[in-house]
């Protein structure tokens, strides 16, 4: 078994870590709401110094819907912002803007999700900042991108999923679409942004210069639809909602005695029928006609009902275990509590402590293990707004206490 090593010291023997300090020394200023704060998390987990710049009254994802989280920030805020530093700054005021420009001139990355044109109008266009800091990587994540006639449109996870094509293929036919659980469209934007930033860093190694990154949430969604655009462009077929049945009919969900099971019954049909038959539950499926894929397709209801009658007699665990032993890609439809107790995830130490909340609270770690000799330290919980104001303004920028008081009094910090 490989150990996770959470120290910052070089270790002589490489050990697996989820937090390789690959971006140590890279400084990122994050002017982002939840369109891109997950990007900052991806970078901080690689050891970057990510400093959130929040308005003196905090960013929009802080408000929490209920009492437990109201003083801490919402679950999203807590999850996205561990190990980041935070300063408060009102950069819409002239004095604040000047400070931000100074900070960014010493940074590697500016990560922002302001509506297109906002920073330009304030005097923080890429071309302007690049003059002072040619190595700057200026990464923008917005609803529809920096260009195009609809760049000023507003979005959110629901709208991005709708305009990007996810919604049209998720849910039941003849009913309203379903949004994917969680905030998947926003996360796709962040994943693309993090990838683009690391690519820009690689490019900078060769050219010595930074670059501009333009991520559109709509494009992030639309570029990840698997079969949908492929089928349209090749055959004109418009993918539709199929409920839990996947588009080529090869997988669907059946009931068990204790929940639901995702099955792929057609790959090894003969073996499945034998299995059901051993319990006298194969019913009409024993007929050799069902060996033909086309016959199964036109008699799908019989197939589904017969299999369901059998699976209802079993627990998900029984069927999952036996199916996987036979190489069937079946799995229980797990609830969230079941995810937390997953033997696979726990054996791999996937869940890590969420600091700053209750002691026993866990969060997912990064999904990759790197075999490397330098891990990054797990520094802290997600910050309160302005927690690092002193560190950054006084210690790093050299502001005096008097100047800091003055700036606070006019609401700049």
């Amino acid at each position: 078994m490989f150990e996770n090593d959470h120290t910052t010291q070089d270790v002589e023997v490489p050990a697996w870590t989820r937090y390789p300090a690959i971006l140590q020394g890279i400084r990122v200023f994050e002017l982002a709401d939840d369109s891109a704060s997950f990007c900052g998390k991806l970078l901080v987990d690689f050891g970057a110094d990510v400093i959130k710049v929040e308005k003196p009254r905090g960013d929009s994802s802080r408000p929490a819907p209920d009492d437990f989280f109201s003083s801490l920030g919402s679950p999203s805020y807590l999850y996205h912002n561990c190990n980041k530093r935070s300063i408060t700054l009102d950069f819409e005021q002239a004095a604040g803007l000047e400070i931000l420009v100074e900070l960014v001139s010493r940074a590697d990355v500016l990560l922002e999700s302001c509506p297109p044109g906002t920073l330009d109008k304030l005097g923080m266009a890429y071309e302007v900042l690049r003059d002072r800091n040619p190595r700057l990587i200026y990464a923008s994540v917005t609803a529809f991108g920096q260009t195009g006639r609809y760049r000023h449109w507003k979005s959110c996870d629901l709208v991005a999923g709708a305009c990007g094509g996810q919604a049209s293929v998720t849910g039941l036919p003849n009913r309203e679409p379903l949004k994917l659980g969680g905030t998947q469209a926003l996360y796709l934007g962040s994943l693309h942004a993090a990838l683009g930033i690391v690519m820009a860093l690689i490019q900078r190694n060769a050219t010595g210069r930074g670059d501009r990154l333009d991520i559109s949430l709509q494009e992030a969604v639309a570029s990840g639809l698997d079969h949908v655009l492929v089928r349209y462009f090749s055959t004109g077929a418009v993918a539709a909602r199929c409920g839990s049945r996947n588009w080529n009919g090869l997988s669907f969900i059946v009931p068990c005695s204790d929940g639901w099971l995702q099955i792929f019954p057609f790959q090894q049909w003969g073996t499945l029928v034998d299995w059901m038959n051993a319990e006298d539950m194969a019913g009409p499926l024993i007929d050799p006609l069902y060996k033909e894929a086309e016959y199964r397709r036109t008699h799908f209801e019989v197939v589904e009902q017969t299999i369901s009658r059998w699976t209802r007699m079993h627990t998900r665990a029984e069927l999952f275990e036996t199916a996987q032993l036979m190489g069937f890609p079946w799995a229980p439809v797990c609830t969230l509590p079941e995810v937390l107790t997953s033997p696979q995830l726990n054996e791999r130490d996937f869940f890590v402590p969420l600091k700053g909340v209750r002691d026993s609270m866990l969060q997912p770690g990064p999904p990759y293990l790197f075999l490397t000799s330098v891990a990054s330290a797990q520094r802290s919980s997600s910050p309160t707004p302005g927690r690092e104001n002193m560190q950054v303004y006084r210690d790093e920028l050299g502001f005096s206490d008097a100047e800091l008081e003055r700036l606070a009094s006019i609401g700049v910090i």
Partner: protein
Amino acid sequence: MSFDVFAGLRVLDFSRVLAGPSATRLLADFGADVIKVQARKTSGGAEDNEQPYFAAWNRNKRSIVLDMQLPEARRAALDLVRKCDVVIENFAPRVLDNWGLDYAALRQENQSIILMRMSAGGQTGPWRNHVAFGPTVHALSGLTHLTAYPEGPPIGPGFAYADVVAGLYAALAIAAAVYSRAHTGQGQCIDLSEYEALVGLLGPSLIALQAGENEISLTKVLAEPAPAAPYGYFRCQGSDQWCAIAVFDDAQWQALCEVLHLEHVGRDTRFANVAARNRNSAELHSVVGARTAERRASELALHLQDRGVPSSAVKDARDLSGDPQLVERGFFVRLKHPARGEYLCDRGAVRLGCDRAPQWMPAPSLGQDTDHLFRNLLGWSPDKIAAFRRRGIIG
């Protein structure tokens, strides 16, 4: 300039279907030399070079045929590793190990190799030998459970979302390893779990769960970081036409009411703020839906966006292909295959640097680069190439 980020990077790509190929497609799009290792016996379905799916996900790559069942093929693969920077695979963990191509063996050939091992559950753990496709991982991760109508059975995504996510994480991890190697000279071995990737994207829900929220109130925290109401899909005029509408504040609420001629509703205290609208959500949905049903989805979205309300028609593949914003931004690219002709695909969402149209190559046909690669990269003689072809080692 920006399409050369990975120029000079050579990738030996054993990956298949979507998760791995989407990652290596990105690397190839940005200049990497991606060598796709295929076998005649297994080049079917999504891995059939002649099919549109393959054409879309494997552009810009080269193809060689190598029968990895044969020891000489494995030796040839190790020789190729010496000339490569990255090796990527998404088999069950034992496959590469059985071929004698684990990280230790690769390092013998090439000390600074970067090995990306993608799998459903990871290289270790009780489920490491499990078989999985996208829906398998969706089910395990909790995403299928959460993608359901309020009173109904689980449904899940209508496409292999888990594979898309795994591909992005793989590209990110490989890029990070490449960046790191430039500074340290050291390679890397990376163990990426698609299951973990998807669970990671449900972090806030898992945190809310532990705070003592029961399943019913979870829907409150699951929707969006900031609460909104209305927040959902509304039926519009025509068959299966829907508009997604999200209202986060009072200004947007008043704007929605004006656009829908629901001024009296805008003054109704039952709907005065987000919390109140959530309490009366059924009636809210009914009242708003009665008006949206009289409007065309695109026109309604246009009108609402004009007034600052986040909204969009629910777009299908045909809508996307003609979407003015996507078209104007050059999101669709045309590739030309010598035998199959022209085809369209999307360019992906990473836009780095000056925004010019990429000059990209179509997907390769099976084994089109075998001869060229073994001759030019490994210096094999024509006789050796012919002999290995006859014996089915390469193809």
